[in-house]
């Protein structure tokens, strides 16, 4: 018998209009003969239509996983299964894409074939954390689906109180602003901590995000427990002739209004000969002028990353952005990457040992105070970590001289290192 389709007048309204319609996609799947995926999607559409009518969601969670792993599957059981039995189980597999979300058509086609066979045929590219989301699978099919995906080289992503799937910007692969090898940092850190992703045992979720420059194309500062963002320490690179070409093209007024006057720290001034006077000491590496004139300006050559920690959404204490923990870590040699990976691991260890249940690292830092966190991680305090030193006199400073000595020590060490 052919499973009959439910009428979906509300969803159907979303088929019209110029933007690609997910409903068309669902329909195509549902109409695809008697395939198991088609049968499942007929009822899925029925339930979704029901949600649109009643303005209510009908999924509840549960526990489903694959052999050897604790996480990565988001189980969904229907609360209206009696009405829509074929989509009563509609689990999602979170799978990590190649860093930077690059695909060969071969890989994409294999993914489609596997998901058509075992799942609903619905794939989200990508989830907000960066996973490939294979959406819609029965409990029974989760294992075979994963096996086949795993065989073509893909691996499960994160869910629950665990290390989460990470994201890195296109960066080195196709962007002149990129200040470090995002793919390498992304893979070395995550693949070194896979156990924390596949066998959830952390107090709560932990997310890394990698952006090649301060444009932060993966929203790392807001959305990552640890943001790794490229920057540079020396002077930016300036091609004055190209600057002059730009001024000739847009005119002085436009140049002043959109570049000079928009620099957040007044580090730029237009010389009378239309060359740019860059005060690199005052430059805060915001990227703006470089963004406006990518031909004329580029980041400097002494490159590395800034580490910020504590980004998260609002649960419990309210939204937080990450704040600076390492103003600059040089990232060039193998040793440099090793140092970064080690720091990431130490942070995970600290998190595992010190965070309360369901507490993000940003909440932990907020609770114990940044200074204490830095001490625990053996990171020296640095004025780049603050917008400005304290304005409140409510502090006890009788050990000031000891603390000051540390600063001068650290300064000497840094000078020596150079």
């Amino acid at each position, binding site marked *: 018998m052919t499973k009959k389709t439910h009428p979906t007048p509300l969803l159907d309204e979303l088929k019209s209009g110029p933007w690609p319609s997910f409903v068309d996609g669902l329909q195509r799947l549902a109409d695809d003969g008697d395939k198991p995926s088609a049968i499942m999607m007929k009822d899925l559409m029925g339930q979704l239509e029901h949600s649109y009518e009643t303005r209510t969601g009908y999924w509840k969670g549960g526990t489903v996983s694959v052999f050897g792993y604790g996480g990565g599957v988001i189980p969904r059981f229907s609360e209206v299964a009696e009405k829509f039995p074929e989509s009563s189980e509609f689990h999602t597999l979170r799978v990590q894409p190649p860093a930077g979300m690059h695909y060969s058509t071969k890989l994409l086609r294999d993914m489609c074939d596997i998901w058509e066979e075992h799942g609903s045929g619905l794939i*989200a590219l990508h989830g907000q954390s960066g996973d490939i989301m294979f959406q819609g699978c029965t409990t029974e099919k989760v294992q075979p689906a994963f096996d086949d995906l795993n065989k073509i080289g893909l691996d499960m992503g994160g869910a629950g109180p665990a290390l989460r799937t990470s994201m890195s910007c296109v960066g080195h692969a196709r962007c002149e602003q990129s200040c470090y090898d995002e793919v390498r940092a992304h893979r070395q850190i995550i693949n070194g901590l896979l156990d924390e992703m596949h066998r959830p045992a952390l107090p709560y979720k932990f997310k890394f995000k990698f952006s090649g420059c301060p444009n932060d194309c993966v929203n790392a500062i807001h959305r990552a427990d640890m943001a790794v963002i490229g920057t540079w320490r020396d002077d930016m690179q300036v091609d004055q002739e190209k600057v002059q070409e730009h001024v000739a093209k847009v005119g002085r007024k436009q140049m002043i209004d959109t570049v000079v006057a928009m620099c957040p720290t007044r580090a730029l001034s237009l010389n009378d000969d239309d060359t740019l006077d860059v005060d690199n000491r005052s430059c805060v590496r915001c990227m703006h002028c470089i963004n406006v004139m990518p031909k004329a300006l580029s980041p400097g050559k002494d490159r590395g990353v800034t580490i910020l920690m504590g980004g998260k959404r609002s649960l419990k204490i309210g939204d937080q952005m990450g704040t600076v923990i390492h103003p600059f870590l040089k990232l060039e040699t193998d040793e440099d990457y090793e140092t970064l990976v080690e720091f990431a691991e130490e942070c995970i260890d600290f998190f595992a040992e010190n965070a309360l249940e369901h507490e993000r690292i940003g909440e932990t830092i907020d609770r114990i105070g940044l200074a204490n966190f830095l001490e625990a991680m053996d990171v020296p305090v640095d004025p780049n970590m603050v917008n400005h030193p304290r304005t409140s006199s409510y502090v006890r400073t009788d050990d000031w001289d000891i603390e000051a000595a540390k600063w001068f020590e650290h300064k000497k060490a840094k000078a020596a290192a150079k």
Partner: protein
Amino acid sequence: MNKAEMPRRPDEHGVPDPFPYMHPTLRANYGNWDWHERPRPGVLHHVAKGGDEIWTVRAGTQRQMDVGTIRKLCELADEFADGFMRFTTRSNAEFMVTSADKTGPLIEKLNEAGFPVGGTGNSLSMISHTQGWLHCDIPGTDASGVVKSLMDELHHEFTHEEMPNRVRMTTSCCQINCGGQGDIAINVQYVKPPKINHDLVANVCERPAVVARCPVAAIRPAMVNGKPSLEVDEKKCICCGACYPPCPPMQINGPDSTKIAIWVGGKHSNARSKPTFHKLVAANLPNNPPRWPEVADIVKRILYAYKEDGRPWERLGEWIDRIGWPRFFEMTDLAFTKHQIDDWRGARSSLNASTHLHF
């Protein structure tokens, strides 16, 4: 399958190496790009230090794609892009082609196939969104539907670069806000305390964990008609919904509770101004599927005011900082209410301790 078999041990590949899946020109020039320009909306032209060039064509998708849609994209990638493609952090498809001549025909085919080309530079890109009724266990609304209806209306802004700077919108189907911050964010905002099904609490909820989840300590354990349950101090409760995921019997959703709020001025980049959170500009809007017209109306008012009045490179929030909030509310005909005076921790820093005023 009924025949018993020992399940397979996973190979812990971790994050796959992208190089086998990366367009050859990108692979060859990895880390060696020199500059870029945008010949037209939806197309990026990157030039490598060695002189290699690549043209990227960006097309919008529905993110939640059926295999048919993905296979269609593959066809085009095979025909024009040497069998490779990538997706952006906003679920747009990107085809890398090795000559400018290929971009035109590719764009044509994409349009034929129903994929809008754009989302680059100072345009409105795809709205980043979340799960909603399609899959989440706690949604107040749908996600894909909201996005589809808005992108239909804002299609022109995706395919044209007519904004002062890029516009990045987000939606979230509950107050948890998986969609994150945006130039314009459309988020569920609950307006009533949870309705508790006391018969279920004891069995379903780990009560201490639920009590601990409340940001304002409004939940306390209590015996309700003989059963151990939870009680909410409705004076304290700020209707955030945080207690609902760990305790489904504390139902936060409902026609009288699930409303939609609009936020503006969120920013992630460090360009010019530091990253910022988005700010509340409208609330209590109806959750009105399938096309949420009341939401679309306000979003358009905001977007077009910005389009008309913003200066080159000003992000939406930066535009407002220049012209001032009074004028923003005037131009969009939205209301400023006492609810928009922040009172959460650290709120004092949001008060104006200066005579910097906009008249």
